[in-house]
C-alpha cells in the first residue's frame, strides 16, 4: 500500500526516541528541529548583532575603539551581512517557523521525511560552524562585503583573502545543501501530506508564504552554489571565470579573460529571490497575526495567495536592479526597472489587504499584534525607498550610499525581524504551554520599534547627502563629510546600541518564561488554525493522537455572524 493510497499518513511510523541523544540532539520531530534551528539562528544572530554594534561605534565615534582597524571593520561588515541574511533570517523564517508551523497547520503528523529533516539541521549547524571558523583561520574572515564581489574578494588588499573567503564560500555551499534538504521536505509535505479537507486554498497564509519561499529557495540557491564553486575555483585553482586580466599591487596576475559581471549576474539571480525568501514567510505570518489578533478574516485571501505567487515568479526577473551602476549592458536598466516597478504592484495589494483587514476590526493590542502593525509601517517605509532605487536614474546618485543601507535594513532588517519577534510571541505558548512575559514584551516592542525607526529613518538623509556605504573612515580627515552627517551618525549609533541591548532582554524573557511563564492553555489567542487544535499542548510526537483532524472550513472564520464565539476552528464541522 503506497503512501499515495493512504491519504491519512496513518502508515507513517511516528518517531519514538529512546535516549537523550535521540530525543533532543538527533530528534526527527519537526518541533524539536524547529527549536534547534531557532536556537542556533538566534545564537549566531547575537554574534552579528555585536558586530553591528562595533560597526556603529566606528561610524558614529570614529577612533573611539582603537582595535577596530579597517580590516576589522570590513570583516564585521561582511560577517554581519552574511550572518543576518542567510544564517539568521533565512534559517529562522524557514528553518524554525517552517518546521514548526507546516505540519501542524496542515494537520500532518510530521514532515514526509523526518530523517532528511534532521540531517538538514545538522548540515545547517555545520555551515554555521564553518563560517565561525573564519575567525580562527589565518587572516580572519573575509572583508569583501556580503556580496563577495570578485575580483577584489580574492585579491590581496581585502581582509581574509587567504582563508577567510574560502571558509565563507564553503559555508555557503554547505548551507545550500542543508536548505535543499529542508526545502524538499517542505514542498513535498505541503503538496502531498495535507489532512482530509485541507485544500490548498484552505491553508493559512503562513503556509502559503513558506511554500512560495521554499520554491524560491530551491530554484535560486543553485545560482549561489554555482557562483561560490566558481569563485572557489578562481581562488584555489587559478581559473579565470570572474577574473579579468589585471594588475594587483604592481604584479600582473596569471588570470585573464574572466568577467566580474558574470558573478554579479549569477549572484543577484540568487540574491533577489533571496530577499523574497525572507519576505514571503514574513508576509504570511503577518497575515496570520493580523487576522487572529483583530478577530477578522484576512481581507481578500484569494488575492493574497495570488499576490504571493506573482511576487515569487516576478522575483526571478528583477535581479539586475542591483547592478544599474555596474557597467552591464546599457539597455538592461530599462528592462529591469520595468519589472521592478511591476513587482511593487502585488506587494502593494498585500499592504492594502492588511490595512483593510484592520478596518473596523476588533483589534486586540497584544504584543504579537503590535509587532505585526509595526511590520506594516516599517515595510511600507522601506518599500517606498525601494521605489526610488528601482528607477535607474534616481539610483545613480543613491547607489552605494546610506540610502541603500537604510532601504534594505528597513525591508529586510527591521520588518522581517519584527515579524520573527511577533511570531515567537504568538507561537511560544503552543510550543511551551506558557506565555512570554507581557511587560517585558511590551518593553521589548516599544524600544525595538521606535529604536529601529530612530536608526534607519535619519539614515535616508545621509544617503541624500551622498555619504557612501562601506566606508571605514567616516568623517575622519575627509573634506566632503558635512558636520550634519557626523552628528546624525552619532545619533544613529546611540539608538543602535540601545536597541541592541534590548534584544538581550528578549532572550532573557525567552529563557525565564519557559520556567515561570503564565500557563497559556491550548489556545490563548482563540485562533482558528489547526496548530491550536492539537489534543495536547505542547503537542506530542505525531501531533494529533489517534485520529488526524478533518478540515471543514478555511483558516479565517473570525467574527462570523450567527456563531456563538468570535472564531470557529478549521476542524469544526459546518452546521447542516
Amino acid at each position, binding site marked *: 500500500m*503506497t503512501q499515495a493510497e493512504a*491519504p491519512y499518513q496513518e502508515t507513517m511510523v511516528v518517531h519514538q526516541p529512546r535516549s537523550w541523544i535521540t530525543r533532543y540532539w538527533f530528534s526527527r520531530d519537526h518541533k524539536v528541529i524547529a527549536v534547534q534551528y531557532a536556537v542556533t539562528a538566534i545564537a549566531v544572530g547575537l554574534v552579528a548583532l555585536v558586530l553591528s554594534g562595533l560597526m556603529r561605534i566606528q561610524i558614529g565615534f570614529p577612533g573611539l575603539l582603537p582595535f577596530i582597524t579597517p580590516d576589522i571593520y570590513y570583516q564585521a561588515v561582511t560577517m554581519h551581512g552574511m550572518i543576518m541574511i542567510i544564517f539568521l533570517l533565512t534559517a529562522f523564517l524557514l528553518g524554525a517557523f517552517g518546521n514548526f508551523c507546516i505540519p501542524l497547520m496542515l494537520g500532518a503528523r510530521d514532515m*514526509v521525511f523526518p530523517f532528511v529533516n534532521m540531517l538538514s539541521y545538522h548540515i545547517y549547524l555545520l555551515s554555521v560552524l564553518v563560517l565561525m571558523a573564519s575567525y580562527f583561520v589565518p587572516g580572519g574572515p573575509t572583508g569583501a562585503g556580503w556580496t563577495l564581489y570578485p575580483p577584489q574578494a580574492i585579491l590581496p588588499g581585502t581582509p581574509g583573502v587567504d582563508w577567510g573567503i574560502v571558509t565563507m564560500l564553503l559555508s555557503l555551499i554547505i548551507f545550500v545543501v542543508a536548505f535543499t534538504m529542508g526545502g524538499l521536505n517542505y514542498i513535498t509535505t505541503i503538496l502531498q501530506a495535507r*489532512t482530509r479537507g485541507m485544500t490548498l486554498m*484552505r491553508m493559512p497564509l503562513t503556509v502559503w508564504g513558506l511554500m512560495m519561499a521554499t520554491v524560491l529557495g530551491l530554484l535560486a540557491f543553485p545560482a549561489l552554489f554555482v557562483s561560490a564553486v566558481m569563485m572557489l575555483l578562481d581562488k584555489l585553482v*587559478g*581559473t579565470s571565470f570572474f577574473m579579468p586580466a589585471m594588475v594587483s599591487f604592481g604584479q600582473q596576475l596569471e588570470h585573464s579573460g574572466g568577467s566580474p559581471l*558574470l558573478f554579479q549576474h549569477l549572484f543577484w539571480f540568487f540574491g533577489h529571490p533571496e530577499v523574497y525568501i525572507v519576505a514571503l514567510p514574513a508576509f504570511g505570518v503577518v497575515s496570520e497575526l493580523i487576522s487572529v489578533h483583530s478577530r477578522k478574516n484576512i481581507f481578500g485571501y484569494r488575492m493574497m495567495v495570488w499576490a504571493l505567487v506573482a511576487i515569487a515568479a516576478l522575483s526571478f526577473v528583477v535581479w539586475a536592479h542591483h547592478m544599474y551602476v555596474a557597467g552591464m549592458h546599457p539597455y538592461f536598466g530599462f528592462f529591469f526597472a520595468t519589472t521592478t516597478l511591476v513587482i511593487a504592484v502585488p506587494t502593494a495589494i498585500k499592504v492594502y489587504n492588511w490595512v483593510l483587514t484592520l478596518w473596523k476590526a476588533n483589534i486586540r493590542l497584544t504584543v504579537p499584534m503590535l509587532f505585526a502593525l509595526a511590520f506594516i509601517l516599517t515595510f511600507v517605509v522601506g518599500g517606498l525607498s525601494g521605489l526610488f532605487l528601482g528607477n535607474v536614474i534616481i539610483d545613480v546618485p543613491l547607489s552605494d550610499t546610506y540610502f541603500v543601507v537604510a532601504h534594505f535594513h528597513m525591508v529586510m532588517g527591521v520588518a522581517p525581524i519584527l515579524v520573527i519577534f511577533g511570531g515567537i510571541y504568538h507561537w511560544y505558548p503552543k510550543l511551551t504551554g506558557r506565555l512570554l512575559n507581557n511587560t517585558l514584551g511590551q518593553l521589548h516592542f516599544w524600544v525595538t520599534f521606535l529604536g529601529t525607526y530612530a536608526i534607519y529613518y535619519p539614515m535616508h538623509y545621509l544617503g541624500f547627502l551622498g555619504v557612501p556605504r562601506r566606508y571605514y573612515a567616516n568623517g575622519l580627515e575627509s573634506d566632503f563629510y558635512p558636520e550634519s552627517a557626523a552628528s546624525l551618525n552619532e545619533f544613529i549609533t546611540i539608538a543602535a546600541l540601545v536597541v541592541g541591548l534590548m534584544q538581550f532582554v528578549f532572550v532573557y524573557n525567552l529563557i525565564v518564561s519557559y520556567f515561570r511563564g503564565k500557563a497559556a492553555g491550548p489556545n490563548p489567542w482563540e485562533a482558528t488554525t489547526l496548530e491550536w487544535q492539537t489534543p495536547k499542548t505542547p503537542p506530542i510526537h505525531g501531533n494529533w493522537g489517534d485520529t488526524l483532524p478533518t478540515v471543514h472550513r478555511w483558516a479565517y472564520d473570525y467574527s462570523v455572524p450567527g456563531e456563538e464565539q468570535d472564531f470557529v476552528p478549521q476542524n469544526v464541522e459546518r452546521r447542516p
Partner: protein
Amino acid sequence: MIGVERQTIQANSQVPETTLETLADDWGSDIATLKGVPWGKAMMWVFLLSDTFIFTCFLVAYMSVRMSTVEPWPNPSEVFALQAFGVSIPLLLIAIMTIILISSSGTMAMAVNMGYQRRKEAATNLILVTALLGATFVGMQAFEWSKLIFDEGVRPWTNPFGAPQFGAVFFMVTGFHGLHVSAGVIYLLTIAFRIRRGKYDESNFEIVEITGLYWHFVDLVWVFIFALFYLW
C-alpha cells in the same frame, strides 16, 4: 462539501489522466495535489528540478565565458579526437560514452518495468547492469581527463589550444556531471542490494522508478553537455 468529496474520491482513483481538465481538480483538491505520486517520487522530481537549475547555471557560465572572451575557443572535435586505425576520429570517445549512457538509460527503464511486475531478480540484475555501465562511463571520463591533463597539458588555468577558460569549464562541468554519475552508481548499487534483501517487498517497487528518475536525469544532463560543449 460535495466538491471536496468528489475530489477525495478522485484522489483514490488509480487512473492518471493527462488531460488539462484534471489540472484544476488536482490543484484544488485536498490531501495531495499530485495524485498517485508517492512521496519519494514527488521529492525526487523537485530535487531534479533544483538540480536542473544548478546545471543550467553552470552551462550559462560556460556560455558567458565563451562568448565574452576575445581569445579563440578550442575546437572540441579536434581536442577530443582519438587515434584509431591510424586515423584521427573526432569525438570518438565521447560518442562511445554517449552510447554507454543511453544504453544504461535503456536498462534502467527496463528495470523499472521489471520492478512494477514484481520480478525482483530481473529488476536487480538490470539495475546492476545500469550501474556497471555508469561506472564504465565514469572510467572513460577519468581516462579523458588524464589524457588531457598528462598528454595534452590542459590545466584549469591554461591550455595549449586556445582560451584558458576552456580547461576550467571542461573540468568543472564534466566534473560535476561525473560526480552525479558516481553518486548515481552508488545509489543504484544500494537500491539493488536492498531489493535483493527484500526491503521493498511490502511496497509497489516504486523505489525503482524513483531511482530511474535520477538516472535518466543524469543522462539528460549529458545530452545537454554533449550538444553544447562538445559539439557546439
